[in-house]
């Protein structure tokens, strides 16, 4: 028997019962769609977490004023400053595992160049900040300790601000801008960081020495820090431990007793990221079980329909055997039908899965990643299900006695 004939006979048999074939393939369709969506979601979530890490810097803790309520969410954090400059010094000096700690105070202000102006986030900080954020200068230099100590009127512009004030192709280093009517000299432009997954532009920012910020832009609160402290720990496996040590130090310094509520909060980016990853893993697991169950049920459905088909077509099998079909020809024919059903289900499932993944990616705002090898594996798996569950019916058909089969009503 020629291979083309095997395919032709199988397809014709399936197309004779279109609705039945579609319903039979439904299990496989759902299973494969779930696999495709599952992997796309898992990959998308992971990519988003990695994106967050690379933008924020790894091993970072953010200490804010105000109480922590639950799960790292803050309520009105920073509205009433409780962190002090002494706290910052103590964190730098006394907590093991802290590599850098930097204050971050910020306000929205108008930055004015010669003929253009731009409203941006003006942040006061220290040189450690650029280390924590892995953020070198693209042009010029970032802030130095001398800038902070002397309270110089130097500013490092984010790429977006530089482009809006001077044009993307102009080197603004050495130019003068006015922030809150105070003239600052541009000493550097930071490299572009792009957008956060939430759509915030990391580059729409201007950095000035924290001392200058407090003196000229916002006004000092004396011993309090009107912002947050960023800490980089020495390695990511100590992030949580360092967070605990910082908390203990601050509770001690702020005189909070046992059972008292913290007047600060520590946000662990690793924790936030892994929580996100955990929820995406839970979703992945859910989809994986849907996929497994669907493929199993789909396979059983195929076997069931193939058994029905064998008994419906007993006479046809008898005729084919009478004119010379060997048992293996009959077996091949029914296997080809089961395989065609499962493969069609697999291909439709891939399409449904891609559409589902696109919808979910848009909904959760993460990138959609569909790898070709996953598609190949899913389709291959559905083919394996077809063959696996088609074997028994095909074997049964091939074992029919032609005389009995011809007499079958």
């Amino acid at each position, binding site marked *: *028997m*020629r291979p*083309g*004939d095997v395919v032709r006979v199988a397809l014709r048999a399936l197309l*004779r019962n279109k609705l039945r074939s579609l319903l039979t393939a439904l299990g496989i369709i759902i299973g494969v769609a779930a696999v495709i969506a599952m992997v796309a979601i898992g990959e998308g979530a992971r990519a988003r977490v990695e994106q967050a890490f690379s933008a924020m810097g790894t091993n970072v803790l953010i200490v804010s004023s105000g109480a922590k309520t639950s799960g790292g969410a803050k309520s009105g954090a920073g509205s009433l400053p409780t962190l002090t400059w002494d706290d910052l010094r103590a964190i730098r000096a006394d907590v093991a595992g802290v590599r850098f700690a930097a204050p971050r105070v910020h306000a929205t202000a108008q930055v004015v160049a010669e003929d253009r102006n731009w409203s941006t986030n003006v942040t006061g900080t220290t040189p450690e900040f650029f280390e924590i954020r892995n953020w070198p200068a693209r042009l010029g230099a970032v802030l130095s300790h001398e800038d902070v100590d002397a309270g110089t009127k130097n500013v490092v512009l984010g790429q977006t601000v530089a482009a809006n004030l001077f044009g993307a192709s102009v080197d603004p280093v050495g130019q003068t801008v006015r922030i809150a009517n105070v003239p600052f000299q541009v000493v550097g432009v930071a490299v572009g960081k792009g957008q956060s997954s939430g759509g915030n532009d990391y580059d729409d920012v201007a950095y000035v020495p924290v001392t200058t910020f407090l003196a000229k832009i916002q006004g000092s609160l004396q011993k309090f820090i009107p912002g947050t402290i960023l800490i980089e720990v020495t390695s990511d496996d100590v992030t949580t431990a360092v967070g605990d040590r910082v908390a203990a130090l601050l509770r001690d310094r702020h005189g909070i007793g046992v059972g008292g509520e913290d007047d600060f909060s520590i946000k662990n980016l690793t924790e936030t990221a892994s929580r996100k990853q955990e929820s995406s893993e839970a979703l992945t697991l859910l989809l994986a079980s849907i996929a497994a169950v669907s493929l199993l049920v789909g396979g059983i459905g195929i076997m069931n329909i193939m058994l029905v088909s064998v008994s419906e077509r007993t*006479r*046809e099998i*008898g*005729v*084919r*055997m*009478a*004119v*010379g*079909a*060997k*048992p*293996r*020809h009959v077996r091949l024919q029914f296997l080809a039908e089961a395989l065609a059903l499962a493969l069609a289900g697999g291909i439709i499932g891939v399409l449904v899965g891609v559409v589902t993944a696109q919808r979910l990616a848009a909904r959760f705002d993460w990138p959609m990643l569909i790898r070709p090898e996953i598609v190949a594996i899913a389709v291959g798996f559905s083919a394996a299900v077809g063959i696996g569950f088609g074997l028994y019916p095909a074997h049964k058909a091939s074992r029919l006695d*032609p*005389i009995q089969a*011809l007499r079958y009503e």
Partner: protein
Amino acid sequence: MDSTTPLIEIAEVTKTYRMGEVEVEALRGVSVDVASGEFVAIMGPSGSGKSTLLNILGCFDRPTRGSYHLAGEDVSGLDANALAETRNRTLGFVFQSFNLLSRTTALENVELPLVYAGVHPRLRRERAIAALERVGLGDRFHHHPSQLSGGQQQRVAIARALVNQPRLVLADEPTGNLDSRASDEMMALLAALAGDGITIVLVTHEADVAARARRVIVVRDGLIQEDRRNDGWQPAPSSQEHAAGAS
């Protein structure tokens, strides 16, 4: 096989079926030779063993004891695959209930044996067309069985039996589901094929059908009761000429 070897050589064939606890002897020692080109009718009441004999002749079933040589080859010990191949290469079948594939055109029904012989589609089509034309259905290639009369369906079945150029055509009550006119046409067609030198063995319980054959074998109780030649029998096309000349 030389010309003196019979096409069918059956020696002391018995067939025993187990029906639960009981053993039924359907054939109890049958020996018969059929030469190439013969037109044989097997008769007998139901339960006589004639269907069992036809199943063995048609390589659907193997004898319990005894030997069966078909075209010089011992086929009594072949396995399912080899039997299928023998059916495909050497035999053609015509059944009482036609046994055509429904929702399949006449042409494709006729092509079926060639599909399993692995014949190229183009050659397959040519030979199927030739076979349908031979049985007088040159204008019904693309009709489905449900669009054909009983007589036409049986002609398609005969075309299917002929398409692989078999040594032997076996017909099981080929006129059983046909009216008397279609039945006459069918026998005329079979007689004409016999006239072309094709060996035909048919099973029937109708005496007037058997009367068209060259040789009649009567089976009863699993044994051959009678094996006679129809005197004065002539191949169908020339028998009409003969009748015209005599009157």
